[in-house]
């Protein structure tokens, strides 16, 4: 199968062609916000750091943002910096390969003049991108993120297994899918290990999951039990293994081909595991940094959260959430519970929604401009 996308210099295909304006440090966010008000159709990224943190967090945010500015859904980049920060606007603009990129520094001209310069640059980018056309690409060019959040008792019954069917269909087309949220894999390390395509990879994944388990226990102490909360038990989940299997169900049934670091770009095709936390926005940031062109996000309780430059498809696990949040949800897997549909039927619906989205059809989160940003940060703030 094919979709029509924007071919990039590095060979990847974008499913969108966005102008991205990004701050390198939170102090520069005002100018980014101003440009977003003037050009409502550009994508803006304002983040909370860029300074005041240690080398590990600097590296995490630089790698993630480098992935985002080089993202195939982005056609041109303007980075706004302050001047005295750790993560500089030039670092981000220099990281961009094969497409227009500029950097502006507020301490050189003040925010009003920087905004005026930004307006000229963005207008130029918009004109440049207008001339670019979509070209046919095989579905194997797709890299799709798999996410669940605000889960309920039916997430592991309807939405996640349906997404698993869609994931298997994508892998069958030669495409790749990325599952993160290693915290949600606790209790299934031995099972996921056996799904890895080589024993070495299995060892690596098991070590990663056990590391997260230890981290959760150290960080939360008595509260570690919250990873299987009373609400989960009320919902019928009898063990952490059962809960995690319900999360893992969104990965389908194909072998695990690669395990990658947070926001790293996969090098193999098929099912990829990424080291991300469970927190929705940080997990989506990792996947976006790794280059997923689309994220499919299942939800039981419902969430409107999308992500900058990456269309996010929402799948509800039950029809009440779908009805309550119809304007936020793209596919209702609750139809398995009350409309006689099968997991396979909804899996196909999700797959078709992914193909439509790849060709330019907007997701609810895009229509609502529900684009929220955060990036993983684990160390101290100075």
């Amino acid at each position, binding site marked *: 199968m094919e979709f029509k996308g924007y071919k990039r210099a590095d060979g990847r295909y974008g499913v969108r062609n966005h102008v991205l304006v990004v701050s390198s440090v939170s102090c520069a966010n005002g100018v980014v916000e101003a440009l977003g008000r003037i050009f409502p159709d550009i994508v803006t990224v304002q983040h909370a750091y860029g300074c005041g943190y240690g080398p590990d967090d600097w590296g995490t945010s630089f790698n993630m943002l480098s992935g985002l500015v080089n993202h195939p859904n982005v056609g041109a980049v303007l980075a706004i910096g302050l001047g005295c920060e750790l993560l500089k606007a030039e670092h981000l603009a220099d990281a961009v390969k094969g497409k227009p990129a500029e950097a502006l520094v507020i301490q050189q001209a003040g925010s009003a003049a920087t905004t005026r310069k930004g307006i000229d640059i963005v207008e130029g980018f918009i004109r440049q991108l207008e001339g670019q056309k979509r070209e046919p690409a095989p579905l194997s060019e797709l890299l799709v993120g798999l996410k669940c959040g605000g889960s309920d*008792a039916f997430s592991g019954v309807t939405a996640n297994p349906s997404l698993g069917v869609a994931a298997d269909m994508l892998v069958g087309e030669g495409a790749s899918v990325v599952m993160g949220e290693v915290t949600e894999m606790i209790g299934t390390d031995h099972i996921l290990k056996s799904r890895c395509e080589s024993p070495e990879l299995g060892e690596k994944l098991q070590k990663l999951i056990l590391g997260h388990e230890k981290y959760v226990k150290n960080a939360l102490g008595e509260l570690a039990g919250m990873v299987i909360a009373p609400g989960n038990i009320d919902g*019928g989940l009898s*063990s952490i293994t*059962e809960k995690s*299997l319900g999360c893992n*169900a969104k990965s389908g049934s194909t072998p695990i081909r690669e395990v990658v670091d947070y926001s790293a770009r996969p090098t193999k095709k098929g099912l990829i595991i990424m080291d991300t936390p469970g927190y929705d926005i940080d997990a989506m940031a990792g996947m976006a940094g790794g280059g997923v062109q689309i994220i499919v996000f299942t939800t039981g309780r419902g969430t409107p959260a999308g992500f900058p430059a990456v269309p996010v498809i929402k799948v509800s696990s039950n029809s009440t959430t779908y009805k309550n949040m119809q304007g936020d949800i793209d596919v209702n897997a609750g139809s398995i*519970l009350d409309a*006689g549909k099968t*997991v396979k039927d909804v899996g196909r619906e999700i797959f078709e929604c992914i193909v439509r989205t790849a060709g330019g059809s907007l997701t609810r989160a895009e229509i609502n401009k529900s684009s929220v940003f955060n990036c993983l940060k684990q160390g101290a703030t100075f």
Partner: protein
Amino acid sequence: MNSNALKVNPRDNVAIAIRQIVKGEDIVVDGVKLLQAAEDVPPSHKIALVDIKAGGVVIRYGEPIVQAKDDIRRGQWVHVHNSQPIERD
């Protein structure tokens, strides 16, 4: 016939209620009547499709999820009252 339970994987020895099931009600999976509920089962909870002996494993998603604390009879509700996490080395 309207289904009231789902079986995720062919290897599973439990089905999942997709709505409240009452004692004596037929359990219907993929339009096929499999057995009768031996007790009430809340929505999204598990029903044993076969007898599971004490110590035997409960399989969902094709994988062992818990083991039976007591003998569980076909049609019974399976949860933390009659099953426990599987001991690992």
